[in-house]
């Protein structure tokens, strides 16, 4: 018996991600991307990781989706807003179908379907902080450098240089 909450959330994840790729207007695609992020946060809650879920909502829905939507509106011209369904459709479907087949065959062989979830308390922050700063402190600082570089790079890329 599958948990109905899981069914609902996973259905939402899959449906919104398909819509994000397939919706005619790019703005609707961006909205569906935001909903997909939200549904993935629900997935994290089901996986007893509420802190990650909040992080996901805060960062991906609150920041990334807004940036994406802003860019979509910024560069939006009617000329390419509608995606034509060409010959690549079957190629793309075939590629992704093959990916799924390969992965399903791997997972089916490992017998992971029978693994029962071990009992666990939800992780709400302090434990994550301990692991993050205790074991991965250097990675955290490197991540800071990466983020800093990405801001400088993005600003330097997006600005206009007039002669």
């Amino acid at each position: 018996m599958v948990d109905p909450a899981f069914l609902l959330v996973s259905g939402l994840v899959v449906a919104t991600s398909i819509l994000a790729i397939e919706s005619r207007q790019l703005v609707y695609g961006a909205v569906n991307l935001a909903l997909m992020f939200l549904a993935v946060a629900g997935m994290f809650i089901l996986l007893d990781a509420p802190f990650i879920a909040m992080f996901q909502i805060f960062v991906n829905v609150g920041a990334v989706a807004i940036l994406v939507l802003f860019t979509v509106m910024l560069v939006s011209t009617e000329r390419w807003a509608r995606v034509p369904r060409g010959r690549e459709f079957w190629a793309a479907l075939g590629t992704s179908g093959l990916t799924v087949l390969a992965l399903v065959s791997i997972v089916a062989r490992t017998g992971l379907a029978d693994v029962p979830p071990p009992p666990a308390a939800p992780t709400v922050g302090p434990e994550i902080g301990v692991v993050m700063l205790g074991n991965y402190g250097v990675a955290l600082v490197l991540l800071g450098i990466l983020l800093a570089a990405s801001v400088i790079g993005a600003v330097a890329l997006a600005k206009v240089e007039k002669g």
Partner: protein
Amino acid sequence: MTTLADFLTVSMVLLAIGVYGLVRSRNAIRMLFAVEIIISAANINLVAFSRFSNPMDLTGQVFALFSIAIGAAEAAVGLAIIILVFRLTGDVDIAALRRLRK
């Protein structure tokens, strides 16, 4: 009872949708959507393995945190590139990028 395989299935389907989007779309923004979907699939995998293998060890969750952060940085830079391309060519079609090689 939800098992590990259920979560893995969802993440695989997400990966497949992402790959499909990457292959199919010629619009740079749409490709960015696909990349974000693939990153989400990876995050679900990380957290699911962390939850089912050893819940006391939170390495997987910390990796998911890092992964989301890197996804955000990637989106910022990617969108800046898209805006740059749009300003140079007036389009975000991938075919338009080919003209930049000169």
